[in-house]
């Protein structure tokens, strides 16, 4: 027996997403960042670490698109190469935060009560540790590196993700549709993957996109303090830290890394918000008839 079922449904989340200018902006900047990072692996106009005191402080020109800095490096090349660090830091931190966050949230919401309470206290203790402190401890053991930034931001943000999503998972896992699912014969795994996690996904999406944004900023701050990328690695945070003392004399040189960081951070946030809005069917996606 075959029954053909005409498909009348809400517009898909991807189509909904495309109609949201803020989300699209976030997507474009993120794609641009990824493209720059990939491009920089094979090509930059100049060697980003090559210094040449004779050609310092060139203004923007056709030879040096964004000019050169205090030690004669081509700023455009440095930024292009630095996008790799930014991308690594953003994605790496988000991955670490996702793992840490899901583990804390699941352990803190779906286990026995005494264990949940221990986790809650542990989260409160860990939340009190500033990212900077974690970074300093890691850096003193391992030396400053991108990994220090990733792990420090990932852990501290992951704890925060756990804190925010723990009550959310608890709320959802106690809602009646989860009980109804169990009453229909769903096992714990299906219940988690079909009912509980999809309903807390928006919280995760927003938190993790925010984590990526924070990671980019943290890279800047930690580089400035010397816990981030080593001197030999071009990174946006490092350029900004190095050039900020010249802001009075060559303001434009500081604008470029600042702009790159600002746009990237904004883009991550808007991408996260756009994805959340587009994937929630309750936010009234219009219907289309496709067949």
């Amino acid at each position, binding site marked *: *027996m*075959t*029954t053909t*079922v*005409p*498909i*009348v*449904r*809400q517009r898909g989340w991807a189509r909904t997403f495309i109609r949201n200018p803020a989300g699209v902006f976030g997507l474009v900047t993120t794609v641009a960042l990824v493209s720059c990072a990939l491009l920089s692996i094979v090509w930059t106009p100049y060697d980003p670490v090559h210094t040449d005191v004779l050609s310092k402080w060139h203004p923007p020109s056709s030879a040096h698109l964004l000019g050169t800095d205090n030690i004669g490096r081509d700023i455009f090349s440095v930024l292009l190469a630095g996008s790799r660090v930014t991308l690594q830091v953003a994605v790496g931190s988000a991955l670490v935060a996702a793992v840490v966050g899901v583990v804390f949230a699941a352990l803190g919401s779906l286990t026995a*009560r005494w264990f949940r309470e221990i986790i809650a206290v542990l989260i409160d203790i860990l939340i009190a540790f500033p990212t900077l402190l974690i970074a300093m401890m890691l850096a003193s053991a391992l030396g400053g590196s991108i990994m220090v930034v990733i792990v420090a931001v990932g852990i501290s943000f992951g704890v925060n993700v756990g804190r925010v999503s723990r009550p959310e998972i608890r709320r959802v896992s106690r*809602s*009646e*549709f989860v*009980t*109804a*699912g*169990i*009453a*229909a*014969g*769903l*096992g*714990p795994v*299906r219940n988690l993957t*079909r*009912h509980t996690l*999809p*309903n807390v996904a928006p919280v995760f999406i927003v938190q993790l996109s925010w984590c990526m944004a924070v990671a980019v900023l943290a890279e800047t701050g930690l580089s400035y303090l010397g816990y981030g990328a080593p001197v030999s690695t071009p990174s946006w945070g490092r350029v900004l830290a190095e050039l900020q003392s010249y802001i009075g004399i060559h303001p434009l040189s500081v604008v470029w890394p600042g702009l790159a960081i600002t746009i990237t951070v904004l883009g991550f946030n808007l991408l996260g918000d756009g994805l959340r809005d587009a994937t*929630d*069917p*309750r936010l009234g996606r219009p219907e289309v008839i496709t067949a």
Partner: protein
Amino acid sequence: MTLRARDLTVNIGGRTVVDAVSFDVADGDRLGIIGESGSGKSMTALAMLGLLPDGATATGSIRLDDREILGLPDRELARLRGSRIGMVFQEPRTSLNPIRTIGRQIMEPVRIHQRLGRAECRSRALELAKLVALNDPETLLSRYPHQLSGGQRQRVGIAIALAAEPQLLIADEPTTALDVTIQAEILELFDRLVDALGTSLIFITHDLAVLQSIVARALVLERGQVAESGSVEDLLRAPASPIARRIVDAARATSWQKPEAP
């Protein structure tokens, strides 16, 4: 199928909320459970499916076809839930997952218990949607719960409960959250479906008029205990317990019919 509950007792936090409740439901039989709010109706229903809240313990016996199901491990219970005993919940607004389509939610028990392929599941979902008399079932299957009316949602709830062809349906105040006119439609649907499918029914309500329209035999619960049990007709004509009398009087006072002369 026969269900036999004996001395079912539920404790939560040192309180006895269901106290030595016994009843039988035979094949194709219908049993009503009526009582005021907090009398233990829902706890009785949830105990049958092993769905009691955290910290609750149940003792006594619930036998389904001579098999003790009280205290079965979760894995075993999961196999019974939906396939032997289906449950319809009170609040159709919250008992459906807001971000899954109706079709997927109806298909779920079919997939779990009957292990059908995708296409078969889909046509079975369509069949079920038609069974519960949903208008325009093809369209409805790809909608989300918030796009449905309360009555439609409760029809979906019934379709889910019946999806894996259980022999016993437990309905916990399935019409309480609905308008009176919609209530009548849903009650009619229960009546028709249970007859047509030969399913046994345990119907929980606090409303005597609803009880009367759907079952002939009922338990009256008060503070977790069975205050009275027997035919609904007898209950209406000559309520024996004080609580039954109170329920009957309250129903008379709010109904349009004139109270009988003493």
